[in-house]
Every structure is written in structure tokens, then in C-alpha cells.
């Protein structure tokens, strides 16, 4: 079945929108058409969190509460979901939700403009967790900027939620909401109004048909990058194919050899799984955007965008990940190394999509990854270095090194690898190998770092990797 009506649940009612402009953001819709102005616009690029809303997503017989940036989400992306705004949290107009009460009592607002966003991020935290420790709190609000408070009262407010009664109105209405969500969760959503097309298929076979028919469409798979073409560059996206409703692309499987991540699995689901295999991968994912970004951003979106500073890419390269490319003819497995051609250019052809990513286990290897940026949270890397090493009897038997931020694409450091392979695992080897990095990369100056700094950090990260393995001790300031 196909429908051209967007349906979502708001305050336990089904809201239907016909004839929507698929380039309209949820934020603009909510503020301008719906006249709910509690949700604020701070930057229109998902960088400040003032626009944070929560969407309730059906997950079997439960609801996941996902904080997202409404400023970079297109309206059809909330099709089939529950929309929760800051105005909706309290059970009536005279009371406050426990999260709001805490923010109020702990003086968590000053100018108040960022506050609704913080409230929504903390609301999602409150719903999805039972214990609110420092790590959970910081993770939950790392995508929300406050220029007034310095965050201390907000952290205190969040901590005070420990032990609070969790049966808010969403808890009480849960069954009703689940039933409503089930009612609206069935159809493909396609809109093809005069100006713009938006396709949201529910399964892979429909996706392939649409891709074949409309090969020039932009694939929306998270959209935290794509949407800026509308909100910042003021372009139109005239034909969009959205992968977010395809359940067959939302999975994480593992066998003996690798973990396989479906194309539209949000990073936030992936980070929990990868933690036990590659702790450094997890650590970098935690600094990848923010919760709001990782709730929608996907690993294959990150790959297809092919940004030289995409944080997962050097990691996947050094882990020798494969990708499964698919089109109406079938599937093809290929190594990620070789996928990137040039700045934001890949070998992906029109009509093709990335179906999944396979990340091999290498249990006998040591894996390390480092991200250097101006800010810890939600910043783009100046440089990201990733190291996958097998050492036997103090000889480097296997080594895969990749960097982001060092060239037009994320790239393996082949000369450096060569310099180390089959050599002693010693400081001398690494000092020597540092030099060959100069052959591998000629980085550029930009706002994040100068070329010289990048060159130097690339070398120093290599050294750091050695020192940490050698001394079995991390050298980190955020430990």
C-alpha cells in the first residue's frame, strides 16, 4: 500500500498532513503551521540542540524515545511516529513534568532559549534510562549548547532525577500510544506533488524499483548532512528516497568473522554493540555529533557522504571493513578501501545503494583510534587516526593504519604501514615510520587545523599508539 499522507501521533491523536512540501523541516512545520513555538531555532544545522524534539518510535511492543534535531529533519521523517514537543510533557497546564520541575528548581535556565532543547534531551534520557550518572547525563546533553549557565545547574538538575517516579503521562498512556502507532505504521509513503518527490518505501524490493525509476534521487539515510543543502545552501532537493522506514535495513548481526550493520541502522544502536569488540571505536562514536545526530545518522550514510572527516571512515578502513552494494540486479561485496575516489566522490553509481557494512573481527589484533578536535563533544575532527595491529613475538605481523582529515578522502597510510610491517615493535620502527607518513599525505590548511599541525599530529598519534601498547597505559586527558 502506498499513501501520500503523513501520519503521526501527537498528544494521542493521529495527525494527518496532505500535500506537504518534502523539503519542509519538522521545526518549520511545528513553529509556523502548528504554531507551537516552544521548540526554538538556534542554528538550523543540528549544531546547537535548541530545536530538540523527541520522537517515539515503535520497537516491537515498546516505544523508543529518540531526541532529534527538528531543524534538519524533513517532515516525512516523522511519518509513523509519535511527536513529542516541550509543550506536551506536563500532564496539564498547571503542572510540570519531573524533568521540567528539576530544571526549574535547580536554576537550569537563564535566558531560557536553549532550555526547551535541554528539557527534551533530558526527557529522552529520563525515559530511556534508569540511572542517570555523569556519563549518561553528559552524553544526553552533549548536543545542546547553553551560552549562559556553564552547564553546572543543568547537570545538577539531571542528577536529581535519580529516584524520581517515572510514571509520567507517557508511561500511563503507553498502550494507547502503541496501538495508535501500529495503526499508522503500515504504508509506503510516497509524495509526488508538482514540484518535489519523496519516497519512503517499507521494503528493499520497493526501494530497488524506485531507485531504478528515479536514479537521480538523493538518498536520505539520516540526512544530518544532506539536509543542510536545504537549510543552509538554500537549494531544493527535488527527489528524495528515504531509507529510514525499511526494517530490512535496520539490523546488527554478527557471525564468527564479522559484525554486519544494516544501512539504515542509527549509529546510536550500533555504538552499544561495537563497544565490547572495539572500545576505541565506541569512544569515538560517543564523540560523533550528539545523541540527536546519532539517533538518525547511519554508518552507511557516513560512508556514502564520503567526507574526509567522517569519523567512522578511517576506523572502518583500518578494520578492513567491506560494504555490500545493492541495486535491482543484485548485491556486490567490496572492500571499503577503494570506495572513495575523491573529495566526497565514491564509486557508488546511480541506482545503487549501500545495503550494509561488514566489520571483521580481528581478535588477535590490537586496535586503537584517536580523534583530535578543538572541542571534545560534537566537533568535527581536525584529524582522526586509526590503528589495527597484529604483533607476534615483538614483530609487527599485520598493520592497517588510516587517517581522516589528512587528504581529500579518508585514506589508508600505505607507506607507513609498509615501513612497519614485519619490523620490530619498537620505538625506533615507529619513529622511522613517522617519516613515511609524509609520503602518504599532504594535508591542507582549514578552519580546524593547519597542514603542519595535521602532519605533526598524524605522526604523534602513531607514536602515541606505540607508547600506549608498549606501556599498556593510555595517554589521555579525558580518562
Amino acid at each position, binding site marked *: 500500500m502506498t499513501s501520500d499522507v503523513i501520519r503521526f501521533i501527537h498528544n494521542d491523536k493521529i495527525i494527518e498532513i496532505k500535500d506537504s512540501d518534502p523539503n519542509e523541516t519538522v521545526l518549520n512545520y511545528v513553529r509556523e503551521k502548528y504554531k507551537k513555538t516552544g521548540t526554538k531555532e538556534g542554528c538550523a544545522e543540528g549544531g546547537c540542540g535548541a530545536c530538540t524534539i523527541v520522537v517515539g518510535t515503535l520497537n516491537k511492543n515498546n516505544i523508543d524515545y529518540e531526541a532529534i534535531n527538528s531543524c534538519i529533519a524533513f517532515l516525512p521523517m516523522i511519518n509513523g511516529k509519535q511527536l513529542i514537543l516541550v509543550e506536551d510533557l506536563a500532564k496539564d497546564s498547571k503542572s510540570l513534568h519531573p524533568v521540567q520541575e528539576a530544571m526549574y528548581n535547580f536554576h537550569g535556565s537563564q535566558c531560557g532559549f536553549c532550555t526547551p532543547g535541554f528539557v527534551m534531551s533530558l526527557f529522552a534520557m529520563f525515559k530511556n534510562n534508569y540511572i542517570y550518572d555523569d556519563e549518561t547525563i553528559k552524553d544526553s546533553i552533549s548536543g545542546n549548547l547553553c551560552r549562559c549557565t556553564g552547564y*553546572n545547574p543543568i547537570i545538577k538538575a539531571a542528577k536529581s532525577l535519580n529516584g524520581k517516579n517515572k510514571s509520567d503521562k507517557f508511561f500511563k498512556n503507553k498502550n494507547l500510544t502503541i496501538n495508535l502507532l501500529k495503526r499508522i505504521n503500515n504504508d509506503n509513503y510516497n509524495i509526488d506533488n508538482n514540484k518535489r518527490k519523496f519516497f519512503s518505501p517499507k521494503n528493499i524490493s520497493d526501494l530497488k524499483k524506485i531507485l531504478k525509476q528515479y536514479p537521480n534521487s538523493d538518498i536520505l539515510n539520516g540526512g544530518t548532512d544532506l539536509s543542510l543543502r536545504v537549510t543552509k545552501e*538554500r537549494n531544493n532537493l527535488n527527489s528524495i528516497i528515504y531509507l529510514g522506514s525499511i526494517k530490512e535495513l535496520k539490523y546488527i548481526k554478527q557471525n564468527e568473522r564479522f559484525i554486519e550493520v544494516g544501512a539504515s541502522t542509527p549509529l546510536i544502536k550500533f555504538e552499544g554493540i561495537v563497544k565490547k569488540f572495539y572500545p576505541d571505536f565506541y569512544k569515538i562514536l560517543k564523540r560523533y555529533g550528539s545523541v540527536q545526530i546519532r539517533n538518525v545518522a547511519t554508518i552507511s550514510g557516513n560512508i556514502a557522504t564520503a567526507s574526509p572527516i567522517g569519523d567512522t571512515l578511517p576506523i572502518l578502513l583500518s578494520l578492513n571493513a567491506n560494504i555490500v552494494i545493492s541495486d535491482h540486479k543484485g548485491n556486490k561485496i567490496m572492500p571499503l578501501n577503494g570506495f572513495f575516489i575523491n573529495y566526497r566522490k565514491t564509486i557508488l553509481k546511480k541506482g545503487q545503494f549501500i545495503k550494509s557494512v561488514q566489520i571483521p573481527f580481528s581478535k588477535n589484533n590490537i586496535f586503537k583510534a584517536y580523534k583530535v578536535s578543538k572541542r571534545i563533544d560534537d566537533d568535527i575532527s581536525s584529524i582522526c587516526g586509526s590503528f589495527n595491529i597484529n604483533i607476534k613475538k615483538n614483530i609487527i605481523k599485520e598493520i592497517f593504519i588510516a587517517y581522516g582529515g589528512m587528504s581529500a578522502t579518508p585514506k589508508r597510510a600505505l607507506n607507513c604501514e609498509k615501513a612497519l610491517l614485519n619490523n620490530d615493535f619498537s620505538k625506533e620502527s615507529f619513529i622511522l615510520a613517522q617519516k613515511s607518513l609524509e609520503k602518504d599525505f599532504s594535508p591542507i590548511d582549514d578552519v580546524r587545523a593547519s597542514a603542519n599541525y595535521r602532519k605533526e599530529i598524524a605522526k604523534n598519534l602513531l607514536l602515541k599508539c606505540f607508547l600506549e601498547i608498549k606501556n599498556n597505559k593510555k595517554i589521555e586527558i579525558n580518562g
Partner: protein
Amino acid sequence: MAKKNQINIFEESKPHESGKKHVNGQAIYTDDILEPEGTLYGAIGYIKESNALINKIDLTDVYKSEGVVSVVTEEDIPGINDVGPVFPGDPIFPSKKVEYSGQPLFAVAATSTELARKAVLKAKIKYKKIKSIISIKDALLKKSFLVKPKIISKGNASKSIRDSKNYLSGNFYTGSQEHFYLEGQISMTVPLEDGDFLVYTSTQHPSETQQILAKMLNQSSNTISVVVRRIGGGFGGKETQSFIFAAISTLLSYKTNLPVKLKIDRDDDIIITGKRHDFYSEYEVGFENDGKINGVKIKLASRCGFSPDLSLAINDRALFHIDNTYFIPNITVTNYLCKTNTASNTAFRGFGGPQGMMCIENIIENISSKLSIDPKIIRMVNFYKINKNNTTHYNMKIKDNIINELFNDLITSSNYNKRVEKIKKFNSENQYLKKGISITPVKFGISFTTTFLNQAGALVHIYTDGSVQINHGGIEMGQGTYTKISQIASNELGLPLDKIINTSTNTEKVPNTSASAASATTDLNGAAVLDAINKIKENINNYVKNKYKINTDNVMYINEKIIYQNKYFKFKDLIKEVYLNRYSLSSTGYYSTPKIFFDPKKFKGSPFYYFAYGAAVSEVLIDTLTGENKVLQVDILHDVGKSINKAIDIGQIEGGFIQGMGWLTMEEVLWNSDGQILTHSPSTYKIPSVSDMPKVFNVNIYKDGINIENAINRSKTTGEPPLMLAMSVFFAIKNAISSISEYKIYPKLDSPATPEKILTSINEIKEFNENTRF
């Protein structure tokens, strides 16, 4: 007259007056006001050239663009095409020459913001490029100044330096800073009858907005009303930089006779508006073996951008604070106001004060390194004292000096001395990670240094049901001024807070106000509200005296009662009675700061009513392989006098500190050589986020604090001063870098201390180490 009769002890931590509305989304900002039928939406067009002669602006395609209703250029301005606050020079749309990349050239009104923003991109503009001046150094070289360099001096700096046992010279740079208020610039104008306009705008300065719009339209000020309920952060960025947006929305409204909302996209906001002045200084200092400074000579240059805006006052405040807490017997400062082809730099929390202080603190640190004496000692040796060495370089006698005691208290409470030893031990045991620590003081002068601005008005109504409205010229921008002033009124009238409403700041209610700036908002406006209340109380007393023939001395307003010596009334009842007997229950109020005077020509006088003091200890950890840094612990002791609201004061201290830390560590404003700003969005310009919080953050209010002047409740403001407590973070980072040379070399490091700058500084020390083989 009604005597001062309340015992002023509030000190309570009342929540923000809008706190509940903040958290449930009901607080209304300019963009949230329900738009009248027919509202149009604006956008601004510009070119990305920093210096260019305009030949032709072809707007044909802009007119044709979907949804466009109207376009305005400089030709549509009936009156004065300038929004410059003190001096002219800030055209709304320049007629001939673009002087910075992003300078507005025209604007459109369309049926939606999106369509307006698309339309402005379609202009075809022909121009001729001229060579531009972007950096301070370039401006100094080419002598590109806004005004001729100013020299201030006391004693004989050259001679005292010559006669000193020790000598140092060097240079230092502190970077710019983007305000990054979360609510971007926005203005909505509604046309009224007779060509009058009602303007809602996010500004710190409604009165000047009103005056500028009136001049633009060639109308008198009484035809323009400006209303501001609250703004989503200002930090100085909406003291004058908001004017152009109010001007453009009003011009579009004037031309279309329809309401127009002009909401500025974040990137355009950062591109169009000015920021904190970056400062470059060169110094020479002469000092004794114990670190006592004999004389300082400083060349102090700032990047002002293309127009004067507030740059003269900002540079003055840098000059006023170049002593910070130190008595400098001989000093000469030559101040250069560099005119550059960049947006006009403007007010930012501290207003030049932080830049001046950083300059002297850097000198102190260099002296400490040269003499191998803990910088804490150098600071203490040079502090202003009580009975001697207590007059500033601008000849103001400091009467409220508490820095010596406060500093000592913090050394003890922060365990500074022991931690210094522990850090040295850590550093000797760790090759790649290094720790650093620093304690820095703050003394910040309170008052507008332009004396006439130190005045405020208020309007207070008591309605017949006993409810109260207060109004004043202050803007609520998160600093809690509405809350504090409501508390003042509540205390003065003996009423609970819910009986009092602080209504929107409105040029119709209180005219001729000063900007909410200079940390003076509550001091000035709170006192004006108090004055209005006392005038109403006088009326009430007059009635009571006439009617009941009782002594009205020492009347008390407590718990919704008005208590005379032999008789008491319920507040509500007496108010009703006073009304029925035809006495006024409404009054204006007025306040002007006493005691201050200043002769700008001689640069001498007493420009400040009082000083606010504080000190902070910061401990940091740096990674010498990457330059990354982390603030581990911060201990603050800050003087707020007798607090009106401790929660608000703590909030200002913590928030100001983090903002200062951002300025000095990660917030880096970058321009390319063509003068285009490169850091115009949150993806490239990083303000501190939650993980940048110090791991341990001990913030304390100085217990013995009291304002010796009669400021409201004997309190001291907390608006700007705490920002400068963050200097300790910067110098702790330098301390950590210095450890690589076993504290033998004091590193060169400019602000902001980004990982890259830290690593560069480390490398310089390493090279020196290798060359000298320690």
C-alpha cells in the same frame, strides 16, 4: 518622605521569574509572537567582498523570485542611513562602498522566510575590488586607525624602566570571540496608524533602537515604540548590533505598510555582526628582584572593524583595566584603534576589560618566570594596598579594596600551595601528560565609563486589587534582572512575588533608557524602581496621615500588611482606601549613580561607583603529543557584596567563567586573507559544551562581601566580572607547557589556547631544550 524602612535581607535563591515558562516552552521570544495577518518575512542581501566599490546592483531577478513582495535599498531610506550608536559610520545599506564581507546591501520582504532567503541570492552586483586591511598588524603597518592613537600615562615609565634592576619586553595577543547568543538577531515591525511603528526586537537597547528608527524614517522618536519582553542571550552582541536588523524590518514595513519579521540565519548573524575586539600588545616592563613593578610601557592595539561603533569606549575600558589589581607607579599606554575591513567589533561581556587584564597578567607571568618566583607571589607583591599604593593610573582612589584578603582566602581554601607541589611531582613522573595550575585575581570597575549613561527610569503601578506592575529600562537577557528587581519590589512592598509582575521593557513606559550593559542593569533600574515605590508610599502615608492622624514614620510593609506604629492595614484594603480617597497609586522613579566623574581628555577621574573583586584557581592537564587540554579543577571565590539572589549570582559566576574559558581556549574566530569570516556556524565555531566543564568546580561567594557604596541591598553586580576569572585557565595551560622546560622557560602562547597553538608552543620549548641541552 517615606523612610527606608525595610530590612534588606533577601539573599534567597528565588528561581528565575520566567523559569517555569522557560522549561515548558511558554516563554515568548520575538520569533514566538503571534504574527498579525499579512506578515511578510525579510532577508538581507550582501556580497562576500571586504572592500569594494559598488557599480551596480541589479535586483531584477530578486524581484521576480517566488514570493517576493518588496525590495529595499539605500534609496528607500527617507531619513538618516546610519545605525551608528555614538559616532556615524554604520550605514544600513552603504551607497557606494562595501567595507566588510557580509555588509548588508539590500533586503527583501517575501511571503516566507525561506523564499526571502532564496531571493536575496539572485542579485547581480557589479563592483570593483579594492585592497583590504584585515589584520591588526596590517592596520598598524598602514596606519589605518579610526581615531588618532591615544596616549595615557602616569609618572615616568621610560625612566622607571631604565632605573629598574630587571627588564623584559614581549608581545601578546588575545583573540576575538563570537557572542553566540542562542537566540539569533531578530526583529518584527508592525505598522500602526499615522505612520507610527511598533517594533519587537531582540535588543539590549530599546531606547537607542527607537531613536535610530526615528532618524531613519525622518520622524520623531514619539512615533516609534520598542517592546522587549526578554531576549535569548545578549552578552553585548545586542547592545548595538541589533539596530541594523530593527532598521531593516522597519524599513520593509514602512515600504509595504505590512508587518515584517526579519529573522537572521545563524551563519548570516555571525557574518554580519561584530564580535569581541581582538587585541595585540607590545610591552616593556622594569621591575625589582622581588617582582615589584616599577614601570610599564605598552602599545595596545585592537581590531575595531570598519566603523567606530563602541570601539572607543571599549578601548577605554581596556585602558582602565590594564592595571587589574596591581599598583603600577609608572605607566604609559599608547592605544591604537585599528580600522579594518571586517564587521565592526562591538561590546562583549567585559567590554575591553578582559583584554586589558590579560595584557598585564601576561606581563606578571613573564616576570615570575624570569625571577623563578611563584606567580602568586608576584601578584601579591604588586596588589593595590589599603593605605598606600591605592590610586589607579587614572587617578581614582580605591576605597573598597579586598583583593589581598580574598586572594589569601582562596590560596588557603583551594589548597593551592600543596597542589603546586603535587603537580610538580606528577610532571616529573609523566613524560607526555603535564599538569599546570594558576591563580589569578580580578578587579572590575562598575559603571558606564560614559558618565551620562549612568541613569535609569522606572514606572510602578499599584492596582486597586493590590496587584503591582513594575516596569523599568532593564532588559531581561538571562542575567535575572527581572527576578532581582521583582524581589526588590516584593521586599519593599511586603508582598509575595506572585503579586508583582515585571512587564515588558517598553519605550512607551520608560523613556530614554540606557542599554542593559556594563553590569549595571539591576543597580540602576532596581534603584529607579525603588524610587518609584517610595514615591507611592509617600502618597499612601499622606493619605493615612490626613485620615487617621497618626505618625507615619517607620512604617513597615511586611506579609501583605502595612504596619504603622499604632495601627495596621491589610495591604489590599489600604490600597483600595487610598484609591477611593483619590491619591495616586502610580509613580515614575528615577536614579542616577552618585559620586562618579571623569575627564576623558586628561583620562583622570573616578569613573566607577565601585569595584567587584574575585579570584580563581584553575588546574589543567595537557597532552603534549596533541595539544589537547582539560580543565581538571576550578576554585572560585567571588565578591558579590550582599547578594540579592545567590542562585542567580552563582549562575552568573559559573556561566561567566565558562564563557571566559571558551574565549581563552577553544573559541577561535578566523578570517581568510580576503576578510571573509570562516567560522560562522556551530560546526566551525566551538563554544564550550558540557564535557568542557571542569571536573571539579568549586564556586564560592566571598563571605565578608559588602558594597561600601549604597548600591541596592549593598550588593555587587555579577554580570561581567566573573568572565575574567577564566584567565586562570589560560595561565594554568602555560604553566603546564612551561613544565616541559622544568619551568626554566616561559612559553609564548597567544589566546585562544587551541590544541594547535599549545602544540606549537610546546614545540618551541622543545627546540629550545634541544639547542640548550637542559
